[in-house]
């Protein structure tokens, strides 16, 4: 338990942030290594040979990959300030929403960012459908997905609280309108007011510059290919 914890991440990655939030919420000291994805460190490639991606958590020399799997590991190793409920039924619910964030909401949102034209229009429709599902089923009578305190599902949906807004501004499409998604709108405000989250959100202006630049590169290369 006293072994050192290292996190390989990038400052603007929502996946990286998930792990930072979990570690800070539990008060776990760690060393942070900022990766340059155009020049990945040999340690990163050694620790994550399958996907070669961040985030990677290294604890006592052992590497754990995939942000939500890392969070389950952190939860099991350091049970203080629990992020998952105790009852198996509620844990299953939480894991359902995590999977939904990973397989449905997240990919749809990022496809809006990465594409244009017809492909983007479809992605916009998909994203709205996902947001409607979350609005209708995920936040009924709750301040946070975790109840009165934030939990693992709030962390999983953190992308919606900051990155979605950046994507909306860059592509010029408003997806999360307050009057259509009152629960999600309130949740975003509450989530961003939690001190640990507030202090550990990447700067919005800097993200705008970075993600605008990446999108231009992506669209140029897809036109040329």
């Amino acid at each position, binding site marked *: 338990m006293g072994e050192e914890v290292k996190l390989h991440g990038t400052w603007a990655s929502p996946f990286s942030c998930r792990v930072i939030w979990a570690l800070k919420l539990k008060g776990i000291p760690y060393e942070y290594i900022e990766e340059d994805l155009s020049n990945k460190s040999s340690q990163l490639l050694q620790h994550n040979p399958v996907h070669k991606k961040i985030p990677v958590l290294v604890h006592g020399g052992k590497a754990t990959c*995939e942000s939500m799997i890392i969070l*389950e590991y952190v939860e099991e190793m350091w049970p203080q300030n629990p992020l998952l409920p105790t009852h198996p039924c509620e844990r299953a619910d939480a894991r*359902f929403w995590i999977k939904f964030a990973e397989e449905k909401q997240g990919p749809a949102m990022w496809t809006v960012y990465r594409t244009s034209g017809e492909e983007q229009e479809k992605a916009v429709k998909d994203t709205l459908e996902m947001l409607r599902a979350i609005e209708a089923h995920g936040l009924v009578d709750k301040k946070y997905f975790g109840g009165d305190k934030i939990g693992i599902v709030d962390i999983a949906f953190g992308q919606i609280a900051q990155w979605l807004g950046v994507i909306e501004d860059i592509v010029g499409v408003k997806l999360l309108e307050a009057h259509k998604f009152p629960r999600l709108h309130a949740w975003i405000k509450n989530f961003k007011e939690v001190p640990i989250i507030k202090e550990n959100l990447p700067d919005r202006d800097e993200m705008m510059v970075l993600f605008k630049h990446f999108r231009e590169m992506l669209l140029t290369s897809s036109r040329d290919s």
Partner: protein
Amino acid sequence: MAELKLFRTWSSPFALRVVWALNLKGIQYDTIFEDLSNKSSLLLQYNPIYKKVPVLVHNGKPLVESLLILEYIDETWKQTPLLPEDPSERATARFWAKFGDDKVMLSVWNVFIKQGKDQEEAIVTAQENLGFIERQLSGKKFFNGETIGFVDLAFGWLANLLSIWEEICGVTLIDHEKFPMLSEWIQNFAGAPIIKESWPPRDKLITKNQALLEVYTSKEAPK
């Protein structure tokens, strides 16, 4: 006694994971077979977002998504654990199960629905992914060690569906020379009594998959 119902189809490999998990732990349950072309109102009520099988209903509470159902079963019934105890080993198990569903399954399926150069490329990708799995086995009888566990159940589809697709298409993806450990795992897993007794009838599976492959192959064919 607690009420436990499993909504499934006769052929779904995802539902089979849940059948195996319940049988391995000796848990009694009722089965409801669904016709996916005419889903029951109960299924749609229990799984409104995905509308899929399997769904496990425990005392009226629905659980969906097969690997999540396995985690629930493991946490609720402690005998014959599916996941290891050590958090690092649990993370590893979850990683490989996710890799299986996110990458391996689609890459293998692509081999059998694509043709020509596309198929050649698909074979390279699939074998690369299978190579990672082969190395994970590294001399163990099962991914879980001496007994069947979470990752074995997650890859269960490799132990029957793959040979069916290989037979229909005349393409061998997992040969004994390139994948000795995986080949042996397939034998060990497919032949384990609890697993074996639940395999859907092979001739029915061949007919069904022949039809499926035809549909998907024609979608992939150059227009």
